[in-house]
């Protein structure tokens, strides 16, 4: 008997038990649908993290004071004061692989404009900060090198601050606001960015010359960190090595001494975040995969019942000339039809579910064609694997006994 005849027989047999057939399929449908949707969510969130990070600048490098420490040892405040403006100058004059660099110092406090006030930070940076973070000044202008040198009392506000300090919508440019007790002239407003992946409001930001923060607000002689951008984002490791050398020299560290600063690249951060998200995806997919497995067991169960129930039919087929192989083929095809049809419907269900997640929950999702192919292959394999035992059982029946089976 050829495959086409076997398939006809199998389809006919399944058609005789539509409800049961559908319920069996349902296990596979839900399993595959879940796998597709979970992988789509995982892939989508990974993509969105990647996009966010490259938006923030995938060539960004952060330099922090203090040795990299993990675990319980608390760092003394002295350790946190290892980066000085001299280090910044050393990097600026010596580094070859750095495009832009800015010192970072920030002070927390209350921004006040008349009756309105808002708790936030004053972010002390230099003029290159905008390029590193890929931000722009939407209104007014950024402060200048001269403002940095003179520790000018000027600021550039983010949209959130503008909205809170000037709720009536007056143009903030040229107005004087206070940060704590220090009056600052608003010279610019940053472009609006909204929330990032980590849920931070990127508009809750006020830029002030770093010298102003150091001298006028905090009265410190050290900086809290540096942010830089590498010329080539594929060379971040080399860039980090270069900065490390410059800083070690500037700090006069002997070879056996540990670094008293830490350098991180955005790429490292990206890898960290996306590895977390990959792990979540794998977990979700594993749970969904288990439901697919349960679906497969459902197929095996129903096929065993079907073989028992159709013992007489099998006996008849054998006595009119079906070989064990014919019977085996028939039942295997039945199992594969259930699993593959279930798989196709499951892919559709997964697609619909993904679409609904996108519409209702507004999550970033993306169906990977690979996951579709994978589910399809897995379904076929499940059909064969779980159909094999019942099919073998059917093909080994003795026709004499089978035909008289009650």
């Amino acid at each position, binding site marked *: 008997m*050829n495959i086409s*005849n076997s398939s006809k027989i199998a389809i*006919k047999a399944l058609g005789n038990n539509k409800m049961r057939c559908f319920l069996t399929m349902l296990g596979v449908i839900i399993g595959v649908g879940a796998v597709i949707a979970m992988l789509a969510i995982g892939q989508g969130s990974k993509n969105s993290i990647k996009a966010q990070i490259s938006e923030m600048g995938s060539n960004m490098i952060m330099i922090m004071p203090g040795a990299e420490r993990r675990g319980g040892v608390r760092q003394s405040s002295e350790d946190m004061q290892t980066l000085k403006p001299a280090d910044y100058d050393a990097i600026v004059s010596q580094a070859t692989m750095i495009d832009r660099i800015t010192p970072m110092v920030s002070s927390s406090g209350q921004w006040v404009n008349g009756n309105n006030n808002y708790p936030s930070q004053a972010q002390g940076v230099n003029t290159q900060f905008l390029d590193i973070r890929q931000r722009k000044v939407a209104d007014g202008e950024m402060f200048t090198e001269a403002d940095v040198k003179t520790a000018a009392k000027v600021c550039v506000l983010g949209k959130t601050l503008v909205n809170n300090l000037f709720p009536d919508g007056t143009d903030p440019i040229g107005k004087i606001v206070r940060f704590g007790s220090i009056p600052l002239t608003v010279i610019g407003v940053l472009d609006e960015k909204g929330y990032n992946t980590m849920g931070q409001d990127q508009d809750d930001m006020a830029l002030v010359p770093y010298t102003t923060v150091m001298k006028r607000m905090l009265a410190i002689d050290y900086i809290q960190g540096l942010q830089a951008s590498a010329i080539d984002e594929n060379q971040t490791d080399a860039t980090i090595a270069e900065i490390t050398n410059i800083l070690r020299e500037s700090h006069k560290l002997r070879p056996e001494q540990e670094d008293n600063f830490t350098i991180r690249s955005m790429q490292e951060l990206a890898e960290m975040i996306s590895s977390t998200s990959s792990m979540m995806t794998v977990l979700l997919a594993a749970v969904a995969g288990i439901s697919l497995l349960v679906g497969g067991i459902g197929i095996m169960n129903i096929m065993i019942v079907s073989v028992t129930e159709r013992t007489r039919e099998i006996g008849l087929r*054998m*006595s*009119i*000339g079906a070989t064990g*192989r*014919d019977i085996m083929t028939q039942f295997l095809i039945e199992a594969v039809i259930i699993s593959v049809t279930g798989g196709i419907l499951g892919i559709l269900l997964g697609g619909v579910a993904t679409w609904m997640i996108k519409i209702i929950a507004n999550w970033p999702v993306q169906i990977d064609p690979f996951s579709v192919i994978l589910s399809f292959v897995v379904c076929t394999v499940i059909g064969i694997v779980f159909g094999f035992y019942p099919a073998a059982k059917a093909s080994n029946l003795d*026709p004499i006994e089978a035909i008289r089976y009650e």
Partner: protein
Amino acid sequence: MAKEIIKVENLKRHFKVGEETVKALRGVSFTIYEGEFVTIMGTSGSGKSTLLNTLGCLDTPTSGEYFLDGIPVKGMNKNERARIRNRKIGFIFQNYNLLPKTTALENVELPLLYNPAVSAKERAERAEKCLREVGLSERLYHKSNQMSGGQQQRVAIARALVNNPVIILADEATGNLDTRTSFSILTLFQRLYREGKTIIFVTHNPEIALYSSRNIMLRDGHIVSDQYNNDIKSAEEVFRSLPVETE
């Protein structure tokens, strides 16, 4: 001399049931020629089912020889026996054994599905022809569960004819039917006999022997009598004489 369709020589079949050996057939020999209508008769336990299974190539004898259409069946493996059943034998069972929820035509086509040499078109044509022969030309697309017992058995007979077998093996083919329907089925068998078909009809009902051309009696695994019937009664006459049952 007519062609030898079935030839068995000193056929023995022993079963092991626990410690004991049950000797179902203890040396059976006979030859059936083309065009004979043979009834094989015996009470339960006489070995007639075992004999039928052996003749139908479902079972292999413990010892002795069996030639079907000149081909030695003994020593054939499972697949070879499946093939010979498909090409040479037409089975008819007591409980019809039609596929449920399946049309008469599809039921009759079934044996040809297992013969790759027959195309789908030829399959349908041959099945339709056989159904017409058994008087069911009006019911080709009726499903098996929409038909009476007599009609179902006719479908089963058509199924047994569709592969042009050298031998038709009927196992208590009228056992589940009422008297009148039984005789209509017997009439059909007699017609097939007149058309030259070779038929073996296994039954425990001695009356049926009156309508066949030869009767073999089995008891305890031996043949106790093997007689030709020179005065074959007409099943059709009996069928006509029986009143049509009305409500």
